[in-house]
């Protein structure tokens, strides 16, 4: 494993259960995440993002393949891995019966730390929680609770921090605050952050590199700019009135692809501005019922790679069924 990689995943698969009723949650995934980066796993619900975190943190065993975190094999050297990682859950998990300081002390004991008070005080100062450290965390606001949870994850100076959907369910202001914190801790403490998200704008704003995951497979990886450059086209969504021949769309200059979606069409075009001129010269304006134009973004990357948008795809309909199946088969 190269010295500069904090996480290396080689051909990892995860299957819940066995036999005909088993569920393949991850399908031969490989990834290398360099030290000191904020790396995003972006994908819709049920894509396999949280499963990757469970495997890398040792919560769930790998079915096939190998994974190393901080230089250690997650299966054979699990305790060494767990001493070098921090974890921030989607939902805040704190002991409400205890104060902020007591939660930190508990975490220090779990991490077997002896000299932790100075670091804890520094973290409390950084997260502006010093004044409330002796109050029960049940009296904290959502933002304060999230900050304390991140402080717990950083207490033992981990090499890698896993953040599983850290902003899910938060209001816009708290989400923005969290974004600043992620950027800040990465800069201030030099940790590698592996972040999962199904918010495209979040991954775009925070991550140095992103892997797009869908149905248990990594379908693209790169910096946000690299991924957007792959699209190299504008996306036009269009609904025409009944009786308009859609075949005309594929004949227009600059149209790279036409795909049906519901009762409308999705087109990849070289330039949306030029396309509009050609469209209006071929189709009467009153035959166009709806039109929207999208410049290259991570959303359009996903659309191009999968033919679906986040959250409107067929597998998403089966997410509940998928999770219910996993719950039954969980090992």
């Amino acid at each position, binding site marked *: 494993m190269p010295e500069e990689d904090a996480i290396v995943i080689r051909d990892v698969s995860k299957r819940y259960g066995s036999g005909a009723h088993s569920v393949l949650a991850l399908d031969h995934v490989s990834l290398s995440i360099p030290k000191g980066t904020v790396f995003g796993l972006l994908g819709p619900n049920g894509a396999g993002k949280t499963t990757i975190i469970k495997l890398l943190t040792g919560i769930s065993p790998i079915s096939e393949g190998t994974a190393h975190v901080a230089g250690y094999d997650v299966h054979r050297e699990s305790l060494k891995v767990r001493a070098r990682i921090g974890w921030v*859950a989607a939902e805040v998990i704190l002991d409400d019966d205890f104060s902020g300081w007591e939660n930190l002390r508990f975490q220090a004991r779990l991490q077997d730390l002896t000299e932790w008070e100075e670091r804890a005080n520094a973290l409390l100062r950084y997260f502006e929680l010093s004044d409330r450290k002796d109050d029960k965390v049940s009296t904290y606001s959502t933002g304060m609770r999230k900050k304390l949870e991140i402080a717990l994850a950083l207490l033992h100076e981990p090499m890698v921090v896993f953040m599983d959907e850290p902003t899910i369910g938060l209001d816009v202001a708290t989400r923005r605050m969290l974004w600043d914190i992620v950027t800040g801790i990465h800069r201030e403490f030099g940790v590698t952050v592996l972040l999962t998200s199904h918010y495209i704008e979040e991954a775009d704003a925070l991550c140095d590199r992103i892997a797009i995951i869908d149905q248990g497979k990594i379908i693209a990886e790169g910096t946000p700019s690299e991924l957007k450059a792959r699209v190299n086209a504008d996306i036009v969504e269009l609904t025409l009135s009944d009786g308009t021949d859609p075949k005309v769309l594929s004949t227009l200059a600059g149209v790279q692809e036409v795909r049906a979606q519901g009762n409308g069409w999705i087109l990849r075009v070289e330039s949306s501005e030029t396309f509009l001129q050609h469209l209006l010269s071929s189709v009467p304006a009153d035959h166009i019922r709806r039109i929207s134009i999208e410049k290259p973004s991570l959303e359009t990357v996903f659309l191009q790679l999968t033919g679906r948008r986040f959250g409107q795809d067929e597998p998403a309909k089966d997410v509940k069924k998928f999770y219910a199946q996993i719950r039954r088969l969980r090992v």
Partner: protein
Amino acid sequence: MRSQFWGLYSREVVRTFRNPLVLGLTLVQPFMWLAFFGSAWEQIASKNLGVFGTTNYIAFLLPGVLSTSMLSVGMFGAMSTIQDKRFGFMKRILITPTTKGVIFLSKSLGSATRGLVQIPVMLVAAAAWGVPLGHIPPLDWAAWGVMLFFMAMGFSSLFLAVTAPSTDWQTPAVLANFVTMPFTFASASLVPTAGFPWWMKLISELNPITYSTLLGRAFVLGRSVPWDNLWGMIGFGVICLVVGYFVSARWLRVE
């Protein structure tokens, strides 16, 4: 490992004292047995000296109630573990260098310690009810405490081992309801076992509560002390702890 055990163990014990309702009910629950069951049966015992060996039924009942209350201690330990799984706390613990075995040990011993809190309250209540306790020497008090601690540890370990693969909060409660009846009534805790049918007698002879009750009753009523019961109970506690440790290390489910 010591630091992690101490962190989890102290959390388990301290949490009891942070919740006044839980603490209050934990203390009052065995006291209610003395108050209701004891008062109801006292008049019968007073006329049946030959059956109970004493006319003071509360004195007869006290060791039995202390023993059966250690059974419920185990249930609380298992419920606290399920709660940790459901709220994700178990994951937080296990994404640190803490092993499942250490989690089991801290839960089991934490529950047993919590059970001991009931003992002084019960003794004060019994004394107020006219149970003479002043004649018991310090060594016997210590032996009684050790007996109850090992029984609580044994029951906690059993409950934790059985519920290790479960994440359903109903499991410990249903299990406790299922075993409470045979453990309580097929034992010497409430009445002497002499009049039991053969099958209940058989259960009572396999029941740790019987042995704990008989030892405590010997101390309270000044009878000949069956010291073998103490060694047997220490063995029961240690065996359950070892079995529970390996079962939890293998099958403790995280979520």
